């Protein structure tokens, strides 16, 4: 165990304080920053400690003799120190003070004190942390590893914060709007009052329609590709087409629907279902194919050896074993269809408050347009400045998010459940 060097360690602690506090002010951005004197002091302390420990390390390494550090080590250190010094002087000489405004290169933004100062300090503290860790480990590879891996860990924390932030913001702002009435009554007065029942109905039928179209087609195509097709030419073409289809932007599906389907069926539930179904097709084909591929050949051969025909084998052996994978793909398809706006904007939805018309109470009238959660939310966003719809918008966003995330959650659970259970 090497002895711990106190100077870089303490400069590391000071720099961490600088980093976290400047990051806080960078995010919150109050007009007045009470910590400025501490930042000045902190920068100065870091500066002195890092210089001192660099000199100490150099003496230590040299065993009393004067050696010149390699350029690649000296230059960054000197640059970092110079930068910190400049920042310190800028703050100390009140160049960076409240009221400062910088306009750069005709950009449409003004960089003011409240963002410039925390940013300068943030950068300085980051550099100080880098140097402190390097000095602490005597510029060994271990120090580099500690530095990089702590940054990598930060990215994980950031992601968790992001997810938590998104969910909690929507939950807290939206929960106030949720009531039984909100969920079961249609909206009126341009969405400022009432609820979202028609949107929920519309979303439900659109998703049902989409799945009715994409599930049989998708699974059928996957079975064909994986079990039947021998012509590698056709298979290649279909595979490439599926890949391309998978990448087509959702708005292009909308355009396609507008040019092709709306001309034929009009603005209707049917047109929207076909478009959403088409959009889901590649996902379902790819996941089903993946699931079918993972069924070992020995199972198929066993079945065939018992005298089963090919179709019997597929029906009784292959499909049941591939079911969890296929199911996961379908559930993800449901979630995607429920969360898409662009493909149906011009093909299937209106901002209507009339419930979906039903024949005999069970079959929806597919020639009529419906309302939809995403489209409703989009309209409310457009109304935001003009009418008081913010609360309803948060409520709608919460319902939509909860719906889509819970469907996705089910997909993840199904997959994990079978992944643990099924052992070939």
């Amino acid at each position, binding site marked *: 165990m090497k002895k711990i060097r106190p100077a870089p360690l303490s400069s590391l602690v000071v720099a961490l304080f600088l980093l976290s506090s400047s990051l806080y002010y960078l995010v919150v951005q109050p007009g007045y920053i009470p910590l400025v004197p501490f930042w000045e002091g902190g920068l100065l302390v870091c500066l002195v400690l890092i210089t001192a420990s660099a000199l100490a390390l150099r003496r230590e390494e040299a065993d009393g003799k004067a050696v010149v550090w390699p350029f690649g080590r000296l230059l960054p250190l000197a640059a970092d120190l110079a930068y910190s010094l400049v920042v310190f002087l800028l703050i100390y000489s009140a160049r960076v003070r409240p009221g400062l*405004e910088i306009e750069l290169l005709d950009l449409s933004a003004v960089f003011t004190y409240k963002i410039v100062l925390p940013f300068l300090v943030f950068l300085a503290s980051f550099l100080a942390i880098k140097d402190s860790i390097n000095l602490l480990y005597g510029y060994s590879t271990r120090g580099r590893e500690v530095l990089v891996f702590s940054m990598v860990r930060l990215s994980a924390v950031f992601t968790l914060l992001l997810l938590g932030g998104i969910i909690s913001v929507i939950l807290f702002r939206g929960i106030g709007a949720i009531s039984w009435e909100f969920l079961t009554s249609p909206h009126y007065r341009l969405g400022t009052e009432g609820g979202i029942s028609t949107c929920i109905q519309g979303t439900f039928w659109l998703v049902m329609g989409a799945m009715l179209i994409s599930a049989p087609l998708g699974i059928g195509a996957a079975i064909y590709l994986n079990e039947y097709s021998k012509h590698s030419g056709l298979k290649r073409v279909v595979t490439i087409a599926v890949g391309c289809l998978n990448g087509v932007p959702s708005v292009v599906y909308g355009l396609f629907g507008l040019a092709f389907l709306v001309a034929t069926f009009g603005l209707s539930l049917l047109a929207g279902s076909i478009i959403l179904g088409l959009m889901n097709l590649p996902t379902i084909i790819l996941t089903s194919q993946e699931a079918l591929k993972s069924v070992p050949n020995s199972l198929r051969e066993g079945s065939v050896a018992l005298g089963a025909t090919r179709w019997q084998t597929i029906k009784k052996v292959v499909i049941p074993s591939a079911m969890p994978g296929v199911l996961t793909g379908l559930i993800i398809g449901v979630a995607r269809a429920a969360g898409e706006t662009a493909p149906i904007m011009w093909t299937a939805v209106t901002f209507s408050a009339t419930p979906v018309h039903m024949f005999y109470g069970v079959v929806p009238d597919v020639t009529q347009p419906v309302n939809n959660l995403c489209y409703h939310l989009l309209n409310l966003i457009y109304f935001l400045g003009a009418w008081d719809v913010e609360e309803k918008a948060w409520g709608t966003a919460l319902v939509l998010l909860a719906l889509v995330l819970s469907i996705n959650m089910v997909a993840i659970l199904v997959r994990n459940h079978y992944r643990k259970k099924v052992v070939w």
Partner: protein
Amino acid sequence: MAMVLIFYFLTFESFLAFREVGIFDMLLGQKWHPAGDIFGMAPIIVGSVLITLVALFINILVGVPLAIYLSELAGPWSRELLKPSIELLAGVPSIVYGFLGVLVLVVYLEGSFDMLTGRSILAGAILLGIMFIPALTTICEDALRAVPKEFKEGSLALGATHWQTVRNVTLPAASSGIIAAVILNVGRIIGETMAALLVVGNVARLPSPVFDVFDRGAIFTSVIAGEMGEVAHGSMHYHALFAVGFVLLVIVTVINISADLVRAAIQKRFGGY
């Protein structure tokens, strides 16, 4: 079949606009001014390039380290927590991102940069960059995991630290997957509609200076989604929007195919995973 249909209809509908305006005038024209029947896509293309570059920067900055964390550092406990969270994050509908963008991000940017309006290319880029972190991470992690254990063990046995191993062995070996993931994400960013539509400001005008990300801008998808609702069916504007969609489709398809080719090429050359 569906692919052919999509291409056919887009070409068909956009043909008129291309013929009327001329392909070069349309692609390189400096002004997008539907009321005057002037349809030049240069502002849209510049906007898309800016937004993609900035979004990709954010995307890679968080996405790749996250993938490294998941495949190399995470213990079983944090993996169990992070993996589903990332998958859930990928499932958040884009309109919800757009909604948050309007009410949180745009307001925030407006305050911090004293902008006329927070709706800007930067807002769109931040939103899209964050939105596609899960997509990048998932593919990168798969690529990193596919690197054989022997490679890493060999490196560690030679005395390299864990980080040296990751940097010099694992990352290069997985580079084909990572680069393909990045290219795929370019396609996703260019093709994303709702979130971008709501925060980029939808002003199809060349920013000045050209790299002014704080200005309002427009990208392919936002122009289509923003203007298609109001145009008369069959008008010149209508066809011009289809032309924008056609260009978008061509770009995205080329990107997706090139992602595949790049992966294949790098694998062939360096034997990656």
